[in-house]
């Protein structure tokens, strides 16, 4: 009896589509996000020194036992500053995403449910909004309202809104044409019931995932604005602002910029991985 084993994997017939996940990934991501949230709520549990305390003789300490992430030009402990900055960054991210989503849901539902003419109008408004790249829009808003946390949040939120709106609209349109909506109509359900019991829940479901990932993106954009000096003012501990200040010392004190940046990356990465995990869980149950 001879034996033939195809040496080459050829994806012609798949018995079962195995989810291509790295199981450790989601757990690490969710764990890190939990820590970030805890740090935002109670930074004193993690960091023992005052993020604003100036100790001139401790300036530019490289990372070590006394200062895990080193110290900055005024001798402030960078680890403490990163931990205390969590609250600010997370708050900005959540608030900006909330603003973006609110606008997006209103525009998206209008477009998806309002009929052809309204949809075309919404489409045009989105086109115009898209023509302002988010940072350009943010700069314009800062020009109008001045810099600070408030305008920063609004600018980041507005910048993200058209993308989400397009997604909501597409989702509503797709669900609207789904067979089960037609079935519900054929059964004799009134429109309001169909919209609230079937259309909205089904259309909004994927947005949970987008929302998770969106917070990470919002944190990045907000820190970009802070980095440009348009958000939180130094010496407030905020990741983007810290990066901006550390930039002047990049040639000889890398840790000033490395650690705040690392936390931005880890947070965004965790939201992406966690979001994707969530998506797989949802899809696994639904398709």
């Amino acid at each position, binding site marked *: 009896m001879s034996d033939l084993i195809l040496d080459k994997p050829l994806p*012609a017939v798949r018995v079962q589509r195995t989810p291509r996940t790295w199981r450790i990934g989601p757990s690490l991501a969710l764990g890190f996000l939990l820590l970030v949230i805890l740090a935002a709520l109670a930074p004193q549990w993690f960091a023992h020194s005052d993020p604003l305390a100036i100790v001139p003789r401790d300036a530019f300490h490289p990372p070590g036992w006394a200062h895990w992430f080193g110290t900055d030009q005024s001798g402030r402990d960078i680890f403490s500053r990163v931990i205390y900055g969590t609250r600010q960054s997370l708050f900005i991210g959540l608030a900006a995403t909330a603003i973006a989503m609110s606008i997006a849901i209103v525009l998206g539902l209008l477009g998806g449910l309002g009929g052809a003419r309204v949809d075309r109008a919404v489409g045009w408004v989105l086109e115009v909004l898209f*023509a302002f790249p988010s940072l350009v829009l943010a700069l314009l808003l800062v*020009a109008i309202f001045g810099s600070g946390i408030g305008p920063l949040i609004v600018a980041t939120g507005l910048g993200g809104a058209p993308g989400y709106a397009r997604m909501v609209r597409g989702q509503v349109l797709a669900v609207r044409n789904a067979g089960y909506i037609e079935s519900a109509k054929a059964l004799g359900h009134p429109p309001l019931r169909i919209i609230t019991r079937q259309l909205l829940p089904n259309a909004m479901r994927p947005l949970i995932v987008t929302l998770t990932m969106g917070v990470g993106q919002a944190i*990045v954009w907000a820190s970009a604005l802070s980095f*440009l000096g348009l958000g939180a003012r130094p010496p407030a501990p905020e990741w983007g602002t810290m990066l901006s200040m550390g930039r002047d010392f990049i040639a000889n004190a890398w840790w000033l910029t490395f650690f705040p940046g690392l936390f931005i990356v880890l947070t965004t*990465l965790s939201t992406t991985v966690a979001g994707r995990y969530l998506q797989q869980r949802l899809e696994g149950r639904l398709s």
Partner: protein
Amino acid sequence: MTDTASSNGLTNALGNNPEADPEAGSANPRRERLRRLGKRALWRLAGGILVLWAVATLTFFALRLMPGDPVLAILGGPSGNPTAETIAEATREYGLDKPLAVQYGLYLGRLVQGDLGMSYSQHLPVTRVLAEQSWPTLELTFTSLALAWLLVLALTVLTAGRRRWVSTLASLAETVSAALPHFWLGILLLAVFAFGLRLFPPAGSDGWRTLVLPSLALAIPLAGFIAQVTRESLDLTLEQPFVLTARTRGLSDLNVRFKHALRHAVLPGISLSGWAIGALISGAVVIEVIFSRKGLGRQLYQAVQAQDLPLTIGISLVVAAGYVLANVLVDLLYQWVDPRQQENP
């Protein structure tokens, strides 16, 4: 290569005897397709002009809400201490004494003639500033986009649907790079390659050496993002029946990937590229500041800080125009790759 060559063979064979087939002449698929593409492009451009008008109007009125007196900004900011006479003169000169509606009308009229006014802070015609600053930004964004696509293709086509660990590793690399913020990556590249290894200059905008680090800083996160989408799409495509058909013809795995799967797999990435151009322009603002490059981004940043109204409007318009134009191109590219969607615009 062989593919194009022999498709010509097919065309030649088809063209040998056109009169034998009266219907073929009237409905030449290729000519028909080009005609539709052209029509679509015109429609999209017309729509783009409408968008530009909205952008111009929005920025004009929005910036009128700006705190502070524009006249003071013209005359060098609050510290300039201009006399009442100079203020009155400047107000008249810039038309700031007329009602807002009239100013808007005048502004639109000048806009149509290509006159964007004088920059308050640089005391130069805005068009001249734009002409000077547009090229470096264009150079930067397009190099980054091209670089990003190069990375995407190399990473996905060669690793998708391969052994588990290969694609897991590649997938991990994509996820991490998509999460990297431009500015942090820019600073890291600057620290390592400019200050540490001294391979590339840390600042400036002359010559290709100054372009390497900034475009990498922009391209890597973008590549991560597009690659994620492309990989997913490629994985799906490789499971399609037509891929199986291609294999039953005796095509090798690499041929299947390049001749069939790739074309389908790049479609979502192409639609993303339209959005990506906006993200690249946003990124360019930060990157130009970090690398002290000439360009629209840094100019906008400075114009906003100096409350330079005409320059801010001018740059917003150019950026919007660039975005609109790029999206028309992306749309045409999409239609060219996937001719199925050619319906009315």
